[in-house]
Structures are given as C-alpha cells and as structure tokens.
C-alpha cells in the first residue's frame, strides 16, 4: 500500500504537510481498491482484524455521531466503540470531527456505516495518514524507498515465534499484497491515460500545423503558440505555470467555430480563460473538461475538424507514425530517469504504456511491444501467406468470372500506374494501397492442371541440383508463360522466391534459365510487384555486371519489364542500375574481345545495347531517372546508337529519347548531339513503331525554335507530310500530326508544308479521327492559318465546316486548338461568311461559359476577328441572348489571359454604339477600371484599347475618371512595350476630353511622358499623344483665361 500511495497515487503538486489527493480516475480506482480490501478484511481474516494498531489512524471525518449504530456508545458529539483494546482504550473514538480508529475490524465497520461517504472517508484518512503502514504496524514496517528488507525482517521475527508478532507479520504480508495489487491496477490506469509531455504536444501541434490553412480540405484554419519562446525542457509556459504541469498555450481557429485559447498541460488539454486584451496575459483558469490530447479535444469541439481528419487520416497518421517512432526513443530516454527508484514494473511502463495507448488497445499485454509499423508489415506478410495457403490448400478451377475479374484488376492497375506516375515520387503511401487488391483472391475456384505441374517443377527447382534445376527451368518454359494462370501459379506456389534465389547463385545456366522465365512472366503487373517485393531488382542490377552477355541481356530485359511502375524504377535507380544500364549502351561500340569469341551462349553486342536501351526506356518514365540517365552520360551514347541501322535497337533508343525529351536539359542535349538529324532519317524507316517514336520525339523537341529549323534543314518535313497519308495506325498518326503541329509554329516550315500539300491532307483528317489525333491536326491547322494563303486553302478544301463542328466538343485541349484555328480562319472575310452561316460565332460565344480558363480565353480571342469581320456584327452580337452580360461578367475572372482576351473582345464589341450602350449598362466601366492596376503588359494593352473604345459612349469618360482608372493608365506609359504605349496614348486621348481627367493626368506627370511619345516613329502613337497633350494644354489655357478675365 505504501509504495502505491507514494508512487502511483497522484498527490497535488508541491504540498507541504498534509497533501491532498486529487480526485482523478486513477486515485479513485486506488481508493476503491483499498475500500474493498478493508471492507472484506474482517470477514476474511477475523483474527487479524482484531489486531490493534500501533498508533490509531486519525483524521477529520464528516460522519455524524447519529450515524453510528449498535456497538457504539454515543454521547453528544463523542462516539466510542464498545470494543476496547487490552489497555482499555476504545478501538474507535470520535470526538467532534476528529476520529481515531485502531483496528481493521473497526475500520471495516466504519466503512459499512459510511455507505456513500466511503470514498470521502478513505480519502480523508489517507490524506491525514500519508504512511498508514507505519501507524498500523510500527516504524519498522515503513515504506523504505529503494530497499526491501521485509523478507529479512520476517526471518528475524519468525525466530521470536511470538503470536502477536505473527499476526503483525501476516498483516504486513497482506498489506504488501494489497500494495502490489494497487500498483498493478494503477498501472492499468496510467497506461490508459497518457500524460502529455512537451515533445508529444510539439509533435501534435507541428502535425496539425502541417494540415492547417485556408481551404476546405484542411483540418483547421490555424493553430499557433501564444509564445515563440521555448524553454530548454520544451515547455513554452512561464516557469511558475510549469510548476502546475502546464506545457504551453495554443490559439486554435477551427473552421466552424471561434478561435479557442487552450492550455496543454501534463494532465491533458483544456480551454483556459483566453488572453486578456490589455495585459496580454493569459487567464490560466481552467474553463472546460480535461481532454487526453489535442486531437481528442479538437474532435470534440469541431465537427469540421473530425470530418477532415478522417479524410486526411491516412496521411496524417502516416506522418504521425514516423514521428512516433522518433518520439518513443525520446520518451524512453526522458522518462526513465524520472523514476529511478521505482519498481521494475514501473520502470517498464512509460514506453509500454505509450505504445499501448497509441495502438488504442485497452488490454495490458506486455508482449505486444512490436511497433506499429512492424506490426503492419507482419500483418501484411501473414496476409500474403494466407493467400498462398488458401490457394494451395483449396483446389480451384478457373472459372471465366475470376479470370475476367483478374484482367479487370490488371487493367485498373494499368490506369493506376499512370496516375502514380503523375503524382510526385514522395508519396509512397498511396502506392502501397494500390497494391492491396492483389491479394484478394477468392478460394472458390478449381485449379487448372498447369497449377499442379508447375508446383511440381518448383519443387524440383528447390530440391534439385544444378542439372535437375536446369531441366525443371527448361520444362517450365514450355508452359504458356504469357497466360495469367501460369504466371500466378508460379507466384502462388512460391516459385518467384526460388527463381530470384537462383539469380543469386554462381551457376550461369540456372541464372539464365531463371531470367528467361522471369522475363516472360514479368509482363504481368502483379508478378512485377511481387518481384520487387522479394528484392529481385537489386540482384538483377548486380547481374548487369556479369561478364556473360547473355545474362546481361536477360537481366536488362527483365528490368525493362519490371520497371513498369514507379517504385520499381526508383529501386533500379537506388541500386545504381541506371549507370550500369547506360554502360550497356556502350557495348555496341567496343570491339568483341577474343576471349568471348568462343562463348557458348553467344549473343551479339548489339543485343546487349538493345536490351540496355529497352530497360532505360522503361526507367525513363520517372523524372529522377531521366536525370540519372543524363548524369550517367546516356545522351551521347543514345545519340551514337541512333546512327545504327538495327530497327530493334532504334525503337528503344528513340523511345527513351522521346520519353526524356520532356525535360528541358534533354532537348538542349538532343540539339547539341545532333540527334534530330537521325530522328528525321528514321522517319523514313519501314518500321511503323520506329516512325511513331521518332515523330513523337520530334513533337517533344520541336517546342524549341531552333529544333524546328533543324527538322526542316534535315529534310524532316517531307517525310512527316508523307506519313499523314497513312491513317491506319492511329498512334503513329497522333505522333506525326503532333510533330507537324509543333513544326508549323515556324513560318518557313508552314511554307514547306504547303508545298507538300500537307494542309489539304490535314483538313481531310478533321473527321473520323480519335481525339489525340484531332488535337494535333487542329493545332497544326491553327498554326497554318496564320498565313492568308493557307486560310484560303482551308476554305477551298472545305475545312471550315469540320472545324466549326468541332466547337461542340468537350476535350479541353481540342477546344483550345479549335477556337484558335476558327479564330485564325475568321480573319478572312470570306471564311467569316461561312463561319457565320454555320452559326460558329454562337458556338464560340457559348464556349465563354466553359469551366477551363484556357478555353475561355481562346474562345474570347477567336471572337475578336469574328466580330471584326462579320457583316452586321453589331446585330449579330445583340442576337445572342445574355451574351453581352456574359462577356462583361468575365471581367471578374482572375486569369490574366482570360481578362486580356475579354478586353480585346470588348474592344471589338464596343465598336457598335448600341452594343457599347448595353455593356455600359452592364457596368463595364467600373469593372474595367478595377483592372487598371496591373503589371501584365498584354492585359495593359488590351485594357487600354477597351477603355479607349468605351469612352465613346455617354458619360463613360467621366465615369472612368470617377473610378480612378486614369492615374494607373498614365503609369502604363512607363512600360517598355510600344503596343502598350499606343493603346494607352489612345485611351488617354479619349479620356482627356474630360477636364477632371486632364487634371489627374497632369498631376501624375503624363505630359512629360506623352511629349516623349510624340517623338515616336509610330504615327498612331504620335497622333494620340499629341491629341492628348493638346487637350491638356487647352484646358490649362482655358483656366488661365478664366483666371485673368
């Protein structure tokens, strides 16, 4: 009891003399245990119950004398028990509030009397008697910290063989039993309720901070400490508050309620009185219940928090887990020294209890000390085992439904891989989840006969020597390894482990045989994942070093298959695979060494390089790998291989280049290594796949201006144009049209294309093609349309109708290109007639409602030439119901490109007086004025043009002045762009018709800037600037005249 009371029970801090027991759940539990012990004492141990305490236990009671019943002598405020000790003293004496009890018998009777005050009485008793054992048995039995002499003491006492002493010893033993019980029980409590410490709080706050901020998805709006200063012990509370166990104060703003000021103390988290404004002091008073930690508290307080928490649970706890690992080691270090003299059980507890609580397992299992992550892994393993077992134990048949299900899952896998590639490398968590469906195999189907045969072969692989292994491997290859049943059978009987193990042996034949199988079955995505899980990739990377070329080839080919998903690619890179693969590329160059000439399993050097390129192609789908290939010096090697004439070699080489060309560095290197020339050469190859990849590579590289010229100089445009005529292979067609699109950005290339009649062909491709092709075709036409001659060609070949028809599509990229092309066509009045007849303007107009800003902007740009060139443009525009309002409202967009394009459209719309009146009514003036403060030159130019147009109506000039658009406009004159100057000068000229605007301009120093512009070679600018100055000057003269007259 002594140890439990001093150690486990929670006494209020820093008390002198009689401390008080806090009413915490732990203390309550201890008290209840003591009560139970005392109450049953007299029944269980009647002899010991009569034992008279060395000193009576004294405390202040709340019991009234009236509550004592038979067996007591009640007289006024004093109560005496009828039972007396040997020397005549009553065993229970109550006088006033003070009560003295000197036997267990009396104690238990008292507790019976106290009924519902039991707890209070026990508490008072223990508070008054901090070490009851001493009082009961004498000083010799006191709780001595650190040493336990009780057994020795018992031995001494036994010798005396005294009845009285025997009883004393028995009581002492009983009390020690109770002590142990109390300690154990309190431990359970402690473990259920973690005491917070600074590092835990800090981690929680850091994590929550990570997930806080603006937006719907975050868990909190903000979470901050009240103080930036952190004491060495990790607390932020002032020292005098640390005495009370307080760690720090937080201000938390959840999404759905006001900000809360919190205290984090060792006992838990609660709301305090908040910051008092005048003093910046925190009102430390507790205003809420105590919650066990921050997250629990916030869950309780904010519904939004718990909702978003559950959404972010995965990532949150994923992060938390790692943190916890660290944290655990910290707490272990920290807490053990705090309890140096505590019993062994207690010493163990701090780390244990935290683990248990974190895992949210209420039971007290000392053995379950595996850390969560390990546990997860082991669980996963056992899951794996289970799936293997279930498949081996229960016979299955392959019903069509399961195989269908499998293909479905594998197709889903494919799409998921694509997504994986898009997201950044760092989040491995999601990927692990993707892998889960693998293990969902229902054990209801019968197994095919292949399954048993494969199982037998795997058995021979395991238990055979090299000869038997080779036979088994060769025999296994006779199965249709491209069939999923066989692939999965190999995996399910544990064949993959054996095959991978074989790779680690010395025997070349076994390695070759094993790789030949792995190469085949690694076409299956599940097998790929298992190979990576089993650590197959590092071994294969190591095999790349082998002197045997055949082995190298097979290893590289297998890597090429396996590295089809991100984690695998990363593994290859991390084990130095990229460098080794790049080295393989060098093989084609090096002369064959005579030593290998006689090699039995001869393969050509070219084949080695090909396999290397194949593996690099797979690997190059990851960004970091592209970088690694470049660093390993892969580009010159690829460039050299590109000169080869082996088609099989060229495809992976060009494939790798095409993958990598998405990187800026690569495009520069590709240019430098004169790769374009060879890409162009291979466009004329016979092989469609090769053509496709070459075109694709050109498509990627032709983003660069110089490259576009290079393609032309190397005569690449003609083969590209020629390839347009073959429309059967859609992938190739998409790549070719893409290359043409990018090349057509260059004017000279367009001329060439016209020469090759490519434009006519492109128009022919506007119908019945998949979207990937259409996007590129329309993009190419859009570029071609920049020239008048081509616009005529398109009209003549009937290209306008299909283009306008495409305006109703949904593909964003396609719409952007189509609008651009239609817009370009519309610059030709004759084309415009056709577009108008086809109702193309209405279609364009409705695209302004498209959710994608790119489409909106592109549509608005396209509208400009339409309005400009349409007959009765004003009438046409008015005919669109709600059209003008829609345009004006787009001025509220946040996208600069959209704004610029809409300004341009407004400029054109405003050319019609009636329309100008309508848009003025829709509030175009304030919206335009609001945009005036911008640094974007493109927007400035079109905005100034729009303002200058809109000045032409009513009192718009004055309104612009009132909406403070004039001063920013003057600043536009300081821009470096002449187009901005011209548009601004025109706008200012229009605005200067109003006297107030003139004053604003003058105040903002417009005159000097305009004077410079008068000297510009641009006549329009000259004229506008001069006009504006003359208006300002005239006003000045008029005022002077007024002054003197």
């Amino acid at each position, binding site marked *: 009891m002594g140890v439990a009371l001093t150690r486990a029970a929670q006494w209020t801090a820093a008390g002198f003399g009689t401390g008080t027991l806090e009413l915490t759940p732990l203390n309550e539990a201890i008290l209840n245990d003591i009560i139970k012990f005392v109450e049953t004492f007299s029944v269980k141990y009647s002899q010991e119950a009569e034992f008279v305490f060395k000193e009576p236990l004294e405390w202040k009671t709340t019991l009234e004398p009236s509550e004592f019943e038979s067996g007591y002598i009640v007289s006024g405020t004093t109560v005496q028990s009828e039972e007396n000790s040997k020397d005549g003293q009553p065993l229970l004496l109550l006088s006033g509030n003070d009560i003295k009890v000197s036997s267990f018998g009396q104690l238990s009777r008292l507790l019976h009397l106290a009924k519902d005050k039991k707890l209070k009485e026990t508490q008072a008793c223990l508070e008054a008697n901090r070490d009851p054992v001493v009082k009961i048995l004498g000083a010799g039995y006191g709780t001595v910290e650190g040493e336990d002499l009780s057994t020795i003491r018992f031995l001494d006492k036994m010798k005396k063989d005294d009845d009285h002493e025997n009883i004393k010893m028995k009581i002492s033993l009983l009390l020690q039993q109770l002590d142990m019980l109390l300690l154990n029980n309190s431990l359970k409590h402690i473990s259920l309720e973690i005491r917070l410490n600074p590092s835990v709080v800090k981690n929680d706050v850091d994590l929550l901070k990570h997930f806080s901020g603006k937006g719907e998805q975050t868990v909190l709006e903000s979470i901050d400490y009240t103080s930036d200063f952190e004491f060495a012990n990790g607390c932020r509370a002032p020292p005098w508050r640390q005495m009370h166990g307080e760690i720090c104060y937080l201000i938390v703003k959840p999404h759905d309620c006001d900000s809360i000021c919190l205290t984090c103390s060792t006992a838990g988290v609660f709301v305090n009185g908040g910051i008092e404004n005048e003093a910046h002091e925190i009102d430390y008073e507790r205003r809420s219940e105590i919650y066990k930690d921050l997250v629990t508290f916030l869950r309780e307080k904010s519904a939004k928090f718990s909702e978003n928490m559950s959404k972010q649970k995965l990532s949150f706890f994923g992060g938390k887990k790692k943190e916890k690992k660290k944290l655990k080691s910290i707490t272990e270090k920290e807490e053990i020294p705090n309890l140096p003299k505590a019993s062994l059980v207690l010493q163990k507890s701090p780390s244990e209890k935290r683990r248990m609580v974190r895992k949210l397992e209420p039971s007290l299992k000392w053995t379950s000390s595996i850390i969560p992550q390990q546990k997860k892994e082991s669980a996963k393993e056992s899951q794996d085992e289970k799936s293997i077992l279930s498949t081996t134990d229960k016979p299955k048949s392959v019903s069509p439904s399961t195989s269908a299900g499998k293909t479905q899952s594998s197709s889903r896998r494919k799409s998921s891989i694509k997504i994986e590639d898009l997201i950044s490398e760092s989040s491995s968590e999601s990927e692990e989840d993707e892998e889960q469906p693998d293990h969902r195999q229902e054990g209801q189907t019968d197994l095919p006969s292949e399954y048993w045969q494969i199982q*037998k*072969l795997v058995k*021979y692989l395991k*238990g*055979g*020597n*090299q*000869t*038997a292994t*080779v*036979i*088994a*491997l*060769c*025999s296994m*290859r*006779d199965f249709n390894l491209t069939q999923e049943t066989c692939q999965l059978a190999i995996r399910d009987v544990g064949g993959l482990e054996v095959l991978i193990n074989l790779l680690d042996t*010395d*025997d*070349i*034949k076994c390695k*070759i*045989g094993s790789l030949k199988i792995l190469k085949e079955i690694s076409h299956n995505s599940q097998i790929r994942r298992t190979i990576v899980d089993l650590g197959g990739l590092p071994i294969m990377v190591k095999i790349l070093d082998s002197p*045997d070329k055949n082995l190298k080839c097979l290893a590289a080919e297998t890597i090429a298959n396996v590295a089809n998903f991100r984690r695998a690619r990363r593994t290859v890179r991390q084990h130095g695979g990229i460098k080794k693969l790049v080295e393989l590329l060098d093989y084609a160059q090096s002369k064959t060494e005579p*030593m290998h000439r*006689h*090699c*039995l*399993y001869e393969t050509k050097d070219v084949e080695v390089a090909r396999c290397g390129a194949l593996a690099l192609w797979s690997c190059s789908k990851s960004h970091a790998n592209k970088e690694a290939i470049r660093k390993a010096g892969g580009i010159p090697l690829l460039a050299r291989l590109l000169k080869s004439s082996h088609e099989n070699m060229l495809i992976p080489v060009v494939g790798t280049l095409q993958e990598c060309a998405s990187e800026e560095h690569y495009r520069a290197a590709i240019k430098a290594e004169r790769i374009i020339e060879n890409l162009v050469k291979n466009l004329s190859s016979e092989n469609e796949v090769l053509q496709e990849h070459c075109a694709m590579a050109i498509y990627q590289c032709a983003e660069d201006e110089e490259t576009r010229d290079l393609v032309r100089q190397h005569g690449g445009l003609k083969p590209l144009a020629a390839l347009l005529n073959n429309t059967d292979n859609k992938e190739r067609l998409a790549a070719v049209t893409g290359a043409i699109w990018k090349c057509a950005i260059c004017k000279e290339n367009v001329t060439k294309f016209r020469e090759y009649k490519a434009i006519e062909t492109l128009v022919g491709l506007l119908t019945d093609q998949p979207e990937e092709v259409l996007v590129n075709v329309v993009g190419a036409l859009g570029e071609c349309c920049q020239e008048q001659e081509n616009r005529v060609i398109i009209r003549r070949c009937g290209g306008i109708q299909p283009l306008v028809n495409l305006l109703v599509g949904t593909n964003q990229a396609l719409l952007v290109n189509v609008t651009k092309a239609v817009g370009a066509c519309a610059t030709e009045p004759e084309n415009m007639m056709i577009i108008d007849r086809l109702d193309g303007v209405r279609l364009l107009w409705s695209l302004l409602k498209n959710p994608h800003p790119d489409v909106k902007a592109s549509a608005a740009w396209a509208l400009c030439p339409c309005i400009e060139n349409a007959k009765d443009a004003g009438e046409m525009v008015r005919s669109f119901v709600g059209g003008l309002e829609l345009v004006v409202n787009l001025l509220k967009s946040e996208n600069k490109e959209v704004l610029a394009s809409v300004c341009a459209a407004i400029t054109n719309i405003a050319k019609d007086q009636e329309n100008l009146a309508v848009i003025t009514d829709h509030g175009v003036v304030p919206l335009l004025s609001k945009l005036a403060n911008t640094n974007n030159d493109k927007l400035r130019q079109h905005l100034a043009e729009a303002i200058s147009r809109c000045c032409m109506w009513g009192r718009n000039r004055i309104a612009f002045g009132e909406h403070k658009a004039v001063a920013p406009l003057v600043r536009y004159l300081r821009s470096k762009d002449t187009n901005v100057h011209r548009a601004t000068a025109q706008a200012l000229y229009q605005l200067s018709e109003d006297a107030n605007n003139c004053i604003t301009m003058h105040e903002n120093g417009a005159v000097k800037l305009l004077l410079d512009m008068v000297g510009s070679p641009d006549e329009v600018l000259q004229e506008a600037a001069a006009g504006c100055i003359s208006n300002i000057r005239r006003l000045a003269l008029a005022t002077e005249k007024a002054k003197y007259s």
Partner: protein
Amino acid sequence: MYTVDRKRLQKLKDSISKSSKHFTSYEIECLIKIFYTFLGETTEKQGSIGIDRNAFRNILHTTFGMTDDMIMDRVFRGFDRDNDGFVSVTEWISGLCIFLRGSLEEKMKYCFEIYDLNGDGFISREEMFHMLKNSLLKQPSEEDPDEGIKDLVDITLKKMDHDHDGKLSFVDYETSVREEALLLEAFGPCLPDSKSHLEFEAQVFKDPHDL
C-alpha cells in the same frame, strides 16, 4: 622432359596443328607443355603413353571443377578415343579442342556421346535415370525416393523426345538443344563452366613475354 626433346615437340606440334582447327600453333604448344606437366606430376614412370583415368579425373576435378564421378568417367572415355586407358597427347589436344573451343555441333556430338552410356546411339530412359539419380535432394518423407527422379526423367523425355519413341536419339537431342541451349548439358555438367574455362585458358595460354 620436353625441354630436352625440343625437336620432337616441334614435330608433334606440327602434326597436331594440321588436324586441330580451333587452336593456334602457339596454343597447341602450350597445351602440349601442360600435358607433360600433368604427366610428370602424376606418373613416375618415364615415357608412359599418357594420363591414366585417375590422373585425368583429378585434372577434371581440380582444373575444371567437375564433381560427378560418373560424368568424369564418361569424359575420360570421351577423351580416350583409342580406349587404351590413357589419354595421349594427341587425344588430349583433340579432346580439349572440343572441350574448350568446340562449335555447338561438336559439343552436341561430344555431350551426346558422354550421355549415351552404352553407346547404342540413344539415351534411354534407364540411362537418364542413372545420370539423374543424384540430382534431387532426397526427402525422407517420400515413400519412393526414386519417384522424383522417375518424374524428372518423364519431364525430360516430354521436353526432348520429339519422335515420342521413349528414348532420345541424337536428332531429338540436337533439336532440343537448338531450341534451348541450356539443354546441352542436360544430364550433368560435362563441359567446363565458363569461370574455370577462362581461368584455365588464362593460365595455360598466358604470353611468355608477360612473365
């Protein structure tokens, strides 16, 4: 010994060079030298005609890393063309010619002869069983320890017996090996593995100028 007999050596070399297509005359000289070194090591008797069975097996074991007794015996027989119980210098060179440098055809022929234990032109089921009997780890749990071997023989026949007559003719064997080169040594290693092969050549053919 050979230093004394320089003239004889030269003559021998010339005569062998004519018949051996895979070795250069320098290599032949080296091989002759190594032959006499082996011979000197193993036999005390002067002027013995060649390396005897035990000595040859010893060479196979230490130099080429072979372990299977039966196969080594067969290799000895393969080398010992005239069946006199000794591998003479000529037999040594012509044997190594295939052993180290043989074309696929030569090697197939050589291996097939090794595996055709009774020399009847077929590798029968029994012969296979005999050659494979030590190839599987004996599992004590299995009732018939030979069952695995029998099964392995069946598997092999299924894989290699193209005319389905229950035994492997040379044509069967050749077809299978051309399909899958790994099957060349299907019934046990009878050619040096590439590592000891390279080591042997490096050691024997090393340029005297490098010394």
